[in-house]
């Protein structure tokens, strides 16, 4: 925990991206989370991904609920729009914002308390509706702000810092997202940015509801022996499903995997995901296979990370509702009240 702002100086070789920003330009205020919090690593990954994707910060909206996770949007993208909503209500506020202005890039930040307990219904419906967003769930299995009680994602049998054993069945957020119709589902680990950053970039390019569950150890309340969401446990039980390379549409594809070792997925905007299949075949475009894959590994006691499922040609809320091309917030009175003549026409057509 530091009270000092990060010094303005940066490395002399710090590069600028295509829109003229350095990575430091995507930072926010200095974090007030505990030292070593996984959430800070995720913030760093978001900063890196946005820098690499040449995002213009003013075209981003970051929304969150309540909790340690929901504080994080303050710690990156200091020049973007932000909305800290009521507990568990991030999905509905974000849906509203997205409905009004579909031109922004939407990040939803939530935690296991915010999404798997109080906001479970909200989470499910945002996935179901296909709201075009990157939903990141910073999952540490405890209520950190209230001093370390088990959350709804804590594994059955895992121990709290004080030794209590969790008797409840956990909510498996990736399975739930798949069930509810998310069209991009991934799981990652805050301690593995090489995996996380390309996943975030791919999720940003995906049109539709993209969900990433990120195991993010709570160093203060859930990083002990007996925890199933500690740094050590994650490193010992992490089954990397695939390695992902994200190639934006304008870049030449230079990644070269041998036939049979990789698979290419082209997204709606022409960008390409290159996936190396690390261990075993995982048909990430097949929802049933993805669900089986997750379940099988869960039984084995390992946590699979990587891209678990994608539907590249997914559609989003606006397509479902057949809205106009112009974002609704930019429609003026002229378009919304086209006048008596038009009304007459409509009425006539309904007669």
């Amino acid at each position, binding site marked *: 925990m530091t009270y000092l702002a990060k*010094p303005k100086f940066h490395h002399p*070789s710090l590069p600028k991206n295509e829109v003229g920003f350095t990575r430091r330009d995507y930072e926010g205020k200095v974090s007030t989370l505990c030292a070593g919090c996984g959430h800070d690593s995720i913030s760093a990954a978001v900063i890196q991904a946005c820098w690499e994707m040449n995002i213009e910060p003013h075209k981003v909206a970051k929304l969150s609920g309540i909790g340690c996770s929901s504080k994080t949007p303050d710690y990156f993208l200091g020049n973007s729009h932000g909305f800290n909503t009521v507990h568990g209500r991030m999905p509905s506020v974000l849906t509203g914002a997205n409905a009004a202005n579909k031109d922004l890039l939407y990040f939803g930040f939530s935690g296991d308390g915010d999404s798997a307990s109080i906001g479970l219904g909200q989470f499910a419906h945002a996935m179901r509706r296909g709201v075009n967003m990157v939903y990141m769930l910073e999952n540490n299995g405890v209520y950190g702000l209230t001093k370390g009680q088990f959350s709804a994602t804590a594994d059955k049998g895992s121990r709290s810092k004080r030794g209590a054993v969790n008797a409840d069945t956990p909510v498996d957020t990736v399975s739930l997202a798949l069930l509810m119709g998310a069209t991009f589902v991934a799981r990652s680990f805050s301690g593995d940015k090489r995996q996380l950053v390309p996943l975030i970039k791919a999720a940003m390019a995906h049109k539709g509801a993209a969900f990433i569950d990120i195991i993010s150890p709570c160093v203060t309340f859930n990083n002990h022996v007996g925890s199933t969401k500690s740094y050590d446990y994650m490193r010992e039980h992490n089954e990397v499903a695939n390695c992902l390379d994200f190639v934006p549409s304008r870049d030449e594809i230079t990644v070269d995997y041998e036939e049979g070792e990789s698979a290419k997925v082209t997204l709606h905007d022409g960008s390409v995901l290159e996936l190396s299949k690390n261990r075993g075949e995982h048909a990430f475009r097949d929802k049933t296979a993805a669900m089986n894959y997750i379940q099988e590994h869960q039984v084995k006691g390992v946590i699979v990370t990587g891209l678990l499922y994608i539907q590249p040609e997914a559609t989003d809320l606006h397509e479902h509702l057949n809205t106009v091309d112009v974002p609704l917030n930019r429609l003026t009175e002229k378009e919304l009240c086209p006048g008596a003549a038009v009304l007459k026409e409509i009425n006539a057509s309904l007669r």
Partner: protein
Amino acid sequence: MKPTDIAVPDYFHKVVDCQWACPAHTPVPEYIRLIAAGRYGDAYMINWESNVFPGILGRTCDRPCEPACRRGRVEKEPVAICRLKRVAADFKDDIRDRLPKPPEQKNGKRIALVGGGPASLAVARDLAPLGYECVVFDQDPKSGGMMRTQIPKFRLPETVIDEECDYILNLGIEFVGGKRIDSLKSLLAEDFDAIFVGCGAPRGRDLDIPGRKEVAKNIHIGIDWLSSVSFGHIDRIGKRVIVLGGGNTAMDCCRSSRRLGGEDVKVVVRSGFEEMKASPWEKEDAMHEDIPIFNYLVPKEFTHDNGKLTGITFEKVKAVRDAKGRRDLVPTGEPDQHFDCDSVLVAIGQENAFPWVERDIGIAFDKYDMPLVDKTTMQSTLPRVFFGGDAAFGPKNIITAVAHGHEAALSIDLMLRGEDISRRPPLIAKMLSQKMGIHEWGYRNSVSVEERHNTKWAPVETYINSISVEAELGFDLKTARAEAERCINCDVQTVFTKETCIECDACVDICPMDCITITTPGDESDLRQRLTAPAMNIDQSLYVSGSLKTGRVIVKDEDVCLHCGFCAERCPTGAWDMQKSLLKTAHAGAGCKDECRAKEVA
């Protein structure tokens, strides 16, 4: 790449760029922090211990520390270290009661010191408190050597020289002024246990071109002329003056000329402006006093009218690089340039001269007629004769002379105690954690973003007609404090303990300078390429940990670390700690001998 062995004191010493670059290894950040805290006397004493002449060096040092300063790589310019030293000297209280006292009992050993300049005085200062009887001989009536004779008073007031020389002489040292040693042989015959030669490089190089003899009375050798000015033997010069040469002596000559009646003063240099040996700030100071510098002009002839100097003719040259990249000055073929003048000062270099050292007494000389001197012990081939300062390896600067003095004093002490002088006592290194609380450190870890501050100067009309009125006024306290805050405390080291690291990436993410990387091991050249930010400054070390739990290593590039302690603040397990390295070179005295022995026993 093997894990870094931080137990080797040189590792952290090298991180403190300024201290590493200082020949006397002054603990710069330590005294700058004391200045920031308003403890000027304490800051002065730290300097006094290391470099002996803080007030003098604070005005005249060649500042090898400043080009080395990490701040210069972090932003545009280094910390004004030299002028902060002056602040310590200018604003200290009376520190006389903190100086060593002359010992009540002498140890019976007598040391002769030839020359009363910085090297000899440093030797005497180190040895006198230990009981050695030191006798300093100088041809001039007062001590200080070139500091007194060659540096003009408007840069270095006499009071400062007197004060700092007296601090040393008051340690019970005998100063024999006005006595030139003409024979080392006869000095050796006297009852001295050791002799230190710190007589400087006393001979200014002459320029033998047509006309030199005819107009001899209007041509002066720079250092001799400065010395005569210093002692008041010369107080006028012609209206039109040409100074030949591009070093700091040339800058002192031209600026002195401006004050002694020179109205049209020029500096003419063979080489280009950038290659001139003078320090950049000294060139600036000269130009600030309306003294133009002409480059690429080689003097060809002194012109005269029946023995009355009329000027100098110069050949125009340009720099050409040969196949091996060596620079050569070749004539451009343009017509020669002629400058009129009434006086000429020749400041084209200095040479050593040892006519008083007999060649049959056991002191070997090399082909350049320089004595063979050991670079570490400062000992000549005659065991009880030591050399230091410009006399040892040719003209350098005051701070180098002081460093030589420390080493020679150490050697003399070891020798006269019957020790092996080639075994040097190690650097005294202590590490002290600065952690005081969760986000509280024993040093100020916020990083000032202010740019380098300039010192104050008196209005030009107040000093330009006086040879003794100090032109540069130094920092006022408010500016000094702001400048002191620019120091980034490189001596507060980032110390890593691999056993407690949980590889959470917090340090990697927070580091403002992208210095830290957790990655797979590799050899150094490979690692340098694949860090968070490429480590292209190969003069700066990589701090590599042993293998972490995942088999990876932590690598920290020391190059542009701000020493802000954010890595340690964000570390949940205290694997990073900020520890102040107190590094001191061993000086003459009992401590070092014991330490050597202790090390041997261990």
